[in-house]
């Protein structure tokens, strides 16, 4: 693979890597034909035929080894693909590569040979916007049905025109490959309605005996036009309810924070410290709930345990949902953050509320011990999960994996620490990593992260309890209508429950975003599925799928 050589070079690269706009401009030299800086990073405009060369150079000579996101959009006079690059070692180093193409032939080079994650991102860009990528191995629709007409986020799309969708039999992609009579493979569909797919995922699987010969996750069964929705709503209040519905595994506040962070930076809004602490506490509660769901359903996948662990996980989630309901007023779809703070203060009487959280935190070590007894200490589960679904760190990086999936492959990358926001940098907690790279490590990572989150919450509770009454400002002063300046662009990410959840917003001078792009961690994580399950046994593929912990709402958006 073309990836191997540069990886070595990178590890002994020079210490001071080019980071500022000038340094990068010097590095890129003639490749850059213009500048288009974004609020978060310097941006360079390049020719559509230079994509691979530019990205190779940035990756190998400047250490930008993480293609975080690919945004495509149609502008008045051109199409544009933006590659948002950053680095796993230092998240604050960012650069954007802007590739404009003409209106009549929107065609540029694919970034797939440089970063494998570009595969799906570019398919999405093709599907929704209509840009074509040369050299792309498999440029077909990804979210919409194959027979769909038009590209819905392009300017001339007519939403009212009829569409036809087929219910077809899928063919075995390897059927032609049976060279001799022995090599028989069998094709099976897993999903879109299947208990092990965590929602409406369709996995086209080809089996050779009991072993997986080929898997192709087919997504888009829950593509609810989240980006279109956000582009048609106003910044101030209307967008905030939508993030709750991206990663709906109770990660609502984490998602809201992604939007809040991007929009606050875009509009230059400060958040009072007190509100930051409430946000941090709420977000970590969400993280625990979401990891509990992951652990419970993983156990369900691996040994069909609907009665013990799943129910335990649900019981604990129920407690968290109660706490969050006290705080926000809803069990799942909180809509609690506002730009510049949160919507209301902690519930009265405060002591009771703190008591409730403390009770939960006090019980948590015991609960986790119970989980460990039942799950991670269980020999059957260990047999099933250790050394299955192995995801080596270089592969994880190339696919843009983040969150527990990356951390279980030994990649020390957590936005809460590496690109601090909220109140995280004032608190005492650790980033969990594990270098087992397998299904078991991913499970362990989540369970240990629950402990870290509990640490954060208890510190927040202490802080909130002692906070002087007159300084409890929950919102800063934010204008009623927000109209960020035309053509300001920003890409900001937070550490969601599943990994790096990023938002790209381009303002067009109105009170609604011109382009709103969601970088979903699950989307990138799911992309590693073929990599980690080809050649494994079929039940291990199901376990791997469970260990990636995808939420289809976030994959499809």
């Amino acid at each position, binding site marked *: 693979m073309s990836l191997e050589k540069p990886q070595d070079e990178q590890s002994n690269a020079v210490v001071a890597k080019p980071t500022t706009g000038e340094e990068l401009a010097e590095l890129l030299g003639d490749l850059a034909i213009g500048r288009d800086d974004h609020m978060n990073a310097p941006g360079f405009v390049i020719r559509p035929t230079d994509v691979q060369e530019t990205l190779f150079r940035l990756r190998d000579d400047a250490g930008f080894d993480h293609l975080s996101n690919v945004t495509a959009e149609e502008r008045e006079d051109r199409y544009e693909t933006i590659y948002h690059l950053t680095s796993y070692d230092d998240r604050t180093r960012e650069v954007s590569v802007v590739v404009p193409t003409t209106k009549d032939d929107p065609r540029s080079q694919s970034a797939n040979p440089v970063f494998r994650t570009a595969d799906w991102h570019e398919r999405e860009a093709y599907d929704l916007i209509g840009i074509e990528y040369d050299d792309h191995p498999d440029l077909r629709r990804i979210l919409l049905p194959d027979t769909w007409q038009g590209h819905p986020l392009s300017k001339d*799309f007519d939403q009212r025109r009829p569409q036809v*969708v087929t*219910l077809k039999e899928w063919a075995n992609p390897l059927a032609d490959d049976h060279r001799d009579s022995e090599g028989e493979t069998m094709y099976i569909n897993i999903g879109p309605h299947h208990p092990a797919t965590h929602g409406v995922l369709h996995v086209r699987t080809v089996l050779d005996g009991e072993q997986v010969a080929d898997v192709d996750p087919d997504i*888009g069964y829950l*593509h609810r036009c989240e980006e279109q*929705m956000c582009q048609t709503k106003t910044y101030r209040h209307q967008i905030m309810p939508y993030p709750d519905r991206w990663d709906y595994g*109770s990660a609502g506040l984490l998602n809201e924070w992604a939007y809040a962070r991007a929009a606050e930076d875009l509009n230059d809004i400060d958040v009072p410290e007190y509100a930051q602490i409430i946000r941090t506490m709420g977000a970590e509660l969400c993280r625990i709930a979401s990891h509990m769901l992951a652990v419970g359903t993983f156990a369900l996948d691996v040994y069909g345990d609907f009665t013990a662990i799943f129910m335990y996980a649900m*019981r604990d*989630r*129920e407690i968290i949902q109660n706490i969050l309901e006290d705080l926000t007023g809803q069990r799942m779809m909180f809509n609690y953050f506002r730009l510049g703070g949160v919507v209301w203060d902690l519930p009265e009487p405060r002591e009771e509320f703190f008591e409730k959280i403390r009770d939960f935190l006090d019980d948590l070590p015991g609960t986790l011990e119970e989980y460990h007894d039942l799950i991670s200490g269980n020999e059957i589960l260990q047999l099933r999960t250790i050394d299955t679904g192995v995801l080596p760190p270089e592969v994880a990086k190339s696919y843009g994996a983040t969150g527990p999936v990356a951390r279980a492959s030994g990649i020390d990358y957590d936005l809460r620490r590496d690109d601090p926001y909220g109140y995280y940098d004032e608190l005492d907690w650790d980033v969990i990593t594990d270098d087992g790279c397998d299904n078991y490590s991913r499970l362990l990572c989540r369970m240990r992260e629950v402990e870290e989150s509990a640490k954060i919450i208890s510190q927040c509770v202490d802080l909130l309890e002692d906070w002087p009454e007159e300084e409890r400002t929950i919102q800063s002063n934010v204008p009623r209508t927000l109209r960020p300046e035309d053509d300001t662009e920003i890409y900001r990410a937070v550490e969601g429950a599943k990994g790096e959840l990023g938002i790209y917003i381009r303002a067009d001078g109105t009170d609604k975003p011109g382009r709103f792009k969601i970088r979903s961690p699950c989307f990138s994580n799911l992309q590693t599925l073929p990599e980690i399950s080809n050649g494994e046994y079929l039940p291990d593929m199901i376990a791997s799928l469970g260990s990636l912990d995808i939420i289809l709402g976030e994959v499809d958006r």
Partner: protein
Amino acid sequence: MSSDQNQPFVTDDSKVQTKTRDARMTGTGTDNRFNSKLREAFGSSPFILTKFDNFMNWVRGSSMFMLQFGIACCSIEMMHTYSVKHDLDRFHAGVPRASPRQADVIIVPGTIVSKFAPRMKRVYDQMPEPKFVIGMGSCTISGGPFQEGYNVIKGAEEVIPVDIHVPGCPPRPEALVYGVAKLQQRIAEGESSPVTVKPYELEQFGDLEQDELIDKLAEEVDTDDLVMRYNWADSP
């Protein structure tokens, strides 16, 4: 549970002789979901037939097998409804079956999009009669928060018949339990939503009316492939 369900052999004819019911009895209606083999065996005396039917309906309502069917956010709350604390099992409805062929009730918990609707219809078709549908959440009523989306079906009712709608985004588990209880009551009373032709049905490609779009797709799609045609302009 209402008192007449506790006495299954007493029939209050004034209550059950609804229009749909008449249609079923005479066999002229579109809906014969309640026609059981046993009823045929018992002969034609209306007195016994009504009573036996009543009994059967009571049985059906009191032992419902739910299809394990998760779509979107609402399915998380649905899982909570099945689990500890809310425990739908207490209401004779807590056995989630993974296969549609073993289920009587399908809870549709989430947003239905263009790619998924044909599959959902297929799953619904695979369930044995009599079958019932609970639409959970605003998305199954109208498309909910995503109503204006280019890819979103404006409610489950466009594709399959829905017996009970539980509003909310997502509905609390209590609300879903209430919805299930209401469905049981309806079943016990012998009511179900009529099976009618829906705006979006699975059809053979060759049967679609010819127009520009169909001509364009003719190369990709075989005439006997099943397809669903969405006329977005006519959607509510």
